[in-house]
């Protein structure tokens, strides 16, 4: 699929979401997988916009691309915000901790990491590159 570049603003999140939905449909992902992938990309993209750009008073863009092969759908999200590895974010309080006592930080990244079949991150040529991989099921030809 051809990649898409959009401004790094909250308004761009719906275009990012639409792109991921198209990629999921092309890859024949089931409803549950498509939802989890959408949520994962949404969480990371939102963090990039809010923490990477807005809070630092920076401007930048988001680029998203998708590759489909026989067994996988791979979505790559790139940004030019300061280096940020989502895998290094401390996990949120245990999900067994009662809500009354929970610290609510880290939930977005937690959902992103947990929701996809494989998650990868690299910092390349001054860009954060976050990779979300979903397995295609046997039915999605």
């Amino acid at each position, binding site marked *: 699929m051809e990649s898409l570049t959009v401004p790094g603003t909250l308004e761009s999140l719906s275009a990012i979401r639409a792109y991921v939905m198209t990629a999921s449909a092309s890859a024949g992902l089931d*409803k*549950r997988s498509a*939802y*989890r992938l*959408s*949520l994962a990309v*949404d*969480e990371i993209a*939102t963090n990039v916009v809010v923490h990477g750009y807005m809070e630092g008073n920076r401007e930048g863009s988001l680029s998203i691309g998708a590759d489909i092969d026989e067994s996988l759908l791979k979505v790559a999200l790139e940004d030019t915000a300061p280096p940020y590895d989502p895998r290094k974010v401390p996990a949120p309080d*245990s*999900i*067994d*901790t*009662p*809500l*009354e006592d*929970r610290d*609510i930080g880290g*939930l*977005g990244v*937690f*959902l992103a990491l*947990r*929701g996809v079949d494989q998650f990868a991150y690299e910092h390349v040529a001054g860009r954060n590159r976050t990779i979300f991989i979903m397995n295609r099921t046997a039915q999605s030809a």
Partner: protein
Amino acid sequence: MASGNAKRLVLMLRDLDYIASAGIRVLVFAKQKMGSSVDIYVVAPQDQVRETFEMTGLQNSLVILKRYDTAKIEAL
């Protein structure tokens, strides 16, 4: 949020297609603000929304109902 003494919070979620961490935080925050004596009910959450509750451990703190059942809600 109400400053009065709410007994319970009932959320009708049949038409909610999507929830992200922001929405989860709202529920956690509501529970924290209202205290453990106030129950939160969610009615008819869609499968993917329910799954997100489970991934974040919220299913232990919410009462999940398939439909709005006055008797059930007022008895609990």
